[in-house]
């Protein structure tokens, strides 16, 4: 008669176990879904931000060109968010000379998760920037003295 309560215990343990397994599956699946969707959302946003920065660089380049080598001063503010999907990102700008023109390669990158977006914009004026800029508002400035587009943090 000492095993009269065993079925209750087994029932309880099994319920707990099955519930735990189901919940673990839900958590794992949800985590994976959120991770993948998060990466896609970040990728899309970095692409859009890269395009916007490229457009502003192009605008500044046109303003610099309008002076035709004469005295000019142009400053364009670029409004960018500090974070994408709750994650900080960095901006890397490299200018590659190509004959009379050249192009600026803009690389926007997050470290966790590791997502990268690269955009190219052709400019006639050289583009310079610090080796790595943090995400956020930027300033693109052209002066007659420097004759190049300088990108700095606003």
């Amino acid at each position, binding site marked *: 008669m000492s095993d009269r309560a065993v079925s209750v215990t087994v029932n309880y343990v099994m319920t707990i176990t099955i*519930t735990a397994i189901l*919940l673990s599956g839900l958590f794992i699946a949800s985590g994976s879904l959120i991770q993948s969707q998060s990466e896609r959302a970040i990728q899309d946003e970095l692409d859009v931000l890269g395009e*916007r920065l490229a457009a*502003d660089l192009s605008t500044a380049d*046109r303003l610099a060109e309008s*002076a035709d080598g004469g005295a000019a*001063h*142009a400053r364009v*503010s670029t409004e960018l968010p500090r974070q994408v*999907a709750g994650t900080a990102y960095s901006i890397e700008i490299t200018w590659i000379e190509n004959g009379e023109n050249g192009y600026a390669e803009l690389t926007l990158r997050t470290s966790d998760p590791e997502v990268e977006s690269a955009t190219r914009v052709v400019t006639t004026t050289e583009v310079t920037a610090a080796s790595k800029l943090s995400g956020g508002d930027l300033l693109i400035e052209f002066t007659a003295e420097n004759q190049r587009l300088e990108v700095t943090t606003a």
Partner: protein
Amino acid sequence: MAALNRPGTDRGQLILVTGLTIAVILVALVVLLNTVIYTENLATRGVDAGGGDAIEYRATVVGSVSELIAEENAHYDEEEPPVDGVETGIETIDETLSERHLTRGAVAETRVKDGGNSVTNGSAIIWQTDDRGFINNEETDNWTVATDVTDTERFVLTVDSVNPAAGNEEPFRLVMDDWSMEIEVAGENETDGVNVTIKNASTTAIYEYGTDEMPLEVDLVDGTIESSDPTELRTIDPVPPSSVSQIGYENGDRATGTFELRSDGTPDGTNLTEYDGRDGSDPYYTHTVERVDLVIHYETTELRYTTEATVEAGESA
């Protein structure tokens, strides 16, 4: 704590953890959704920070000032010579365009560089405002108007009256190197009519006009003489040279009238003074506008643009 450890009181912990986890998952999904909506919003927003408007403003200013220079040089006002007219016109262009851009939330400003010192003089314009003898400021009747003339746009003499010669007096004469034009009374009285004698080194031609046909308008660029009678138009032969080293009047006190000369020559500063806004009847000169240096500024919340532009006379807008 004893109460918390009663058998059966920890049964809800699994549900609690589950609930919290689902809440975290939902928050994460909301953040992601927010990011996606923001990205969509950003992606469909206009990308031009106002650069197009700034460049359009610059082009409009350059075009307007170019038209202004052409108009002022061609149709100047004696009270406001081209240089002054262009400066006034640039202020008007600035005010007009500024108001238009202000409604779009942009500050647009145009000014002449260095406070007006960047308006460069071009060809000389010489004119005489009142009817008087063809004499210079010093009341001298033999004098030089301009030298080294290579391009004359306009040279018109309007002769109102000619004094009869007394004795051996020489007639009124316009001399351009070896080309000359004499205007004198045909006889001894003013009523005897007027002879216009035009000659160069090899040819001489005489044109006769009645006194009632005065004033005579002699256009030395078109090469015509037109009297007050509109049917009386004569083509000058020999034609006046277009390029001369010296333009001068002789016996200027023998005729009265006005003249207007627009050329690239050098006005003779000893005989004419530069126009300074005075209301005088002496012959004087001023300049057309050759070039204007402008400072153009355009500013919005996202963009700040300052540039210098040079607009030259004859430059196409």
